[in-house]
């Protein structure tokens, strides 16, 4: 009767979501979650375990020490090693007995002891609780203990919880600034996850490792790991977004701007709307990459809801690049230097200088059919000992790179722009049109792929059809037999 259980579960979920604190105590909720996990564990359904985790996150704000302690007592056998270890980490509070006693009889949930899923869940709960209460040292102990325990388990139903544990494990170390210490452990865990075919774990751990490397600006190592780690279709959208973001960052540093732009924009688009901070980061990087590519991001990018303020420095920067004014660019870079260094985009902004000059040059080349090199140097505000010679070589390089279409007359010291041809006489529009069509078609295919169906529904439908067929056949057979009977008599 899988369907019935499913119904009960979703009813319980609805109840948990609809009726907040007053009706049922946090402890009661926790017990319900435990039973969801138990059901998931017994029926080997990973989806239920992930739901249990989502329910826990909803409870996160209301977790109190006594709830956690009481839940531990409820879920773990008192003699077990895990109980002793975890109970010691949760601080004791007085006056909790009454509440627990009052709640206990109403909760008619009981679970089987000794399930590894429940044990790991307890670790996770305590860890979340400790992080929320800023007890980082205890959290580290708890995380390390849980990782040690995880190493001895190999169950697909634990993987979901394990991947969450890994993230919190890395989180604690990031909060206490000791990320470098856990790199070895994470690498070992990644290897373990690969051997166990735990793809969610691999995904999570790969991201954690990339984050770890990028935290210390170790782009080289990050790229080497990324390019060698096994890739497969993403299991979790969040992890995939993170992966794309890290990938975009690596590619930006290594000057592969086109690929970087794709990854960053995709990450910004795929990220859930609630992940505001993440989307802002993606947008910041995407803006710089687009500027480096010589594109000017549209104004709407900067006006997105809730991002306007954070993106202001980048907006002014874009403006400076668009105008092609070196002086303005310099002043913007100085004005927001603290923001840029906090975002660690300083070095990228230094690279942008070259684009500012290019844009300025392009503007000049469009507006003038002939202009002296000295004027170019003045307009671009090149400040060096020999601005004319600088301008000449800069123009020459721009011509070679195809940024402007012009020739230089060295004897007279001026630049002559060639007439710009009609863009519709080239293949340009055709190419643009093609890339748009390809994008739409690709989106459609992705959407089809992303459609989810509940497992086995296909088979059940078939069996229902078959049953109807069978019934029909039986009916016909009965009719025939009846007719034959009639004939006999």
């Amino acid at each position: 009767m899988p369907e019935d259980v499913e119904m009960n579960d979703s009813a319980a979920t609805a109840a948990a979501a609809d009726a907040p604190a007053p009706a049922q105590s946090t402890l009661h909720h926790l017990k319900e979650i435990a039973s969801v996990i138990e059901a998931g564990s017994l029926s080997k359904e990973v989806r239920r375990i992930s739901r249990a985790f989502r329910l826990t996150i909803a409870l996160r704000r209301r977790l109190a020490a006594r709830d956690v302690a009481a839940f531990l007592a409820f879920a773990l056998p008192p003699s077990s090693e895990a109980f002793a270890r975890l109970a010691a980490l949760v601080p004791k509070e007085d006056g909790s007995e009454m509440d627990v006693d009052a709640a206990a009889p109403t909760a008619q949930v009981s679970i089987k002891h000794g399930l590894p899923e429940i044990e790991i869940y307890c670790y996770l709960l305590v860890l979340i609780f400790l992080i929320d209460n800023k007890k980082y040292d205890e959290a580290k102990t708890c995380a390390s203990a849980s990782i040690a325990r995880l190493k001895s388990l190999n169950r697909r139903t634990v993987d979901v919880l394990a991947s969450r544990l890994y993230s919190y494990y890395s989180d604690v170390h990031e909060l206490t600034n000791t990320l470098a210490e856990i790199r070895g452990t994470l690498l070992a865990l990644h290897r373990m996850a690969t051997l166990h075919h735990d793809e969610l774990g691999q995904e999570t751990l790969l991201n954690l490792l990339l984050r770890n490397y990028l935290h210390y600006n170790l782009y080289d190592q990050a790229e080497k790991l990324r390019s060698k780690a096994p890739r497969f279709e993403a299991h979790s959208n969040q992890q995939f977004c993170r992966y794309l973001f890290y990938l975009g960052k690596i590619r930006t540093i290594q000057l592969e701007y086109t690929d970087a732009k794709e990854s960053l924009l995709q990450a910004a688009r795929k990220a859930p709307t609630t992940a505001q901070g993440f989307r802002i980061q993606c947008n910041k990087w995407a803006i710089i990459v687009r500027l480096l590519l010589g594109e000017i991001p549209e104004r709407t990018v900067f006006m997105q809801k809730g991002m306007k303020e954070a993106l202001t420095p980048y907006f002014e920067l874009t403006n400076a690049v668009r105008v092609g004014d070196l002086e303005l660019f310099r002043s913007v870079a100085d004005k927001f230097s603290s923001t840029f260094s906090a975002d660690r985009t300083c070095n990228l902004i230094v690279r942008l200088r070259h684009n500012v000059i290019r844009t300025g040059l392009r503007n000049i080349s469009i507006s003038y059919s002939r202009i002296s090199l000295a004027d170019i140097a003045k307009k671009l505000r090149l400040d060096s000992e020999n601005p004319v010679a600088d301008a000449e070589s800069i123009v020459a390089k721009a011509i070679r790179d195809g940024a402007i279409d012009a020739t230089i007359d060295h004897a007279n010291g001026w630049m002559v722009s060639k007439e710009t041809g009609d863009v519709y006489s080239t293949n340009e529009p055709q190419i643009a049109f093609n890339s748009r069509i390809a994008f739409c078609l690709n989106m459609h295919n992705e959407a089809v792929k992303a459609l989810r169906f509940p497992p086995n529904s296909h088979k059940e439908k078939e069996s229902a059809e078959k049953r109807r067929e069978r019934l029909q056949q039986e009916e016909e057979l009965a009719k025939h037999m009846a007719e034959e009977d009639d004939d006999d008599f």
Partner: protein
Amino acid sequence: MDPKLTEVAQMFARFKAAYARNDLDACVTLLSQLKVQLTKFPSLPPLFQQAPNSVEELKLARDIYEHAVVLSVKLEDQDAFERDFCQLKPYYMDTCGIIPPSPEEYPILGLNLLRLLVQNRIAEFHTELELLPVKALEHPCIKHAVELEQSFMEGAYNRVLSARQAVPHETYVYFMDLLAKTVRDEIAGCSEKGYDSLSISDAKQMLMFSSDQELNQYITEEHPEWEIKNGSVFFQKAKESQPCKEIPSLQLINQTLSYARELERIV
């Protein structure tokens, strides 16, 4: 003091003496012996084992590799430079807190940046740059390399060349000379596209040749398609390739077919 350490220190002293009297052959043999000796210290990367005299060992090893890098520049051996630098790098990155930073750190890091620039490995250049803290960018040696890269990207080649006169460290000269050659090729490439023609004296000045003969030789070797007549260099030949007006039919057919296929899948 540990006898092994003393032995290596003595050998290193001999190496330095050989280096001081410019006996490069002796330096190379001593260096390879030193490297073999270093493998016997457990406190060095990648093991980082705690030992009572690990600080001395690390310092000595770092010193040896720093000299190895400088020696490789002197020998004008870029591969050896890369090898030695890779060995040296962990001492700069992973030993903070164990031994004090070396005064040679930034000059050598700057030298490596310059090498990457010369070899046109710009992506690696930027990856290395990201590893440096903000205050390192203020250091003249690092700043030199960063500004060079910027001028190089912009196309302000004369700034690159004038930077040769203002090298922050004597070891930089070798790479700056290499860079000058790269710059000449770049300028030649740009001029070809940027100008219709140049007078010989201008071309000579721009490509940094002291005599017409050198210019002629360069043109015949590197750019035989350039034409010299009436005291000017004409680049026109390279420009003759007009954009063809043909319709890219094969590509269009392929695209249309793929649309049809995709649409069929949808309907």
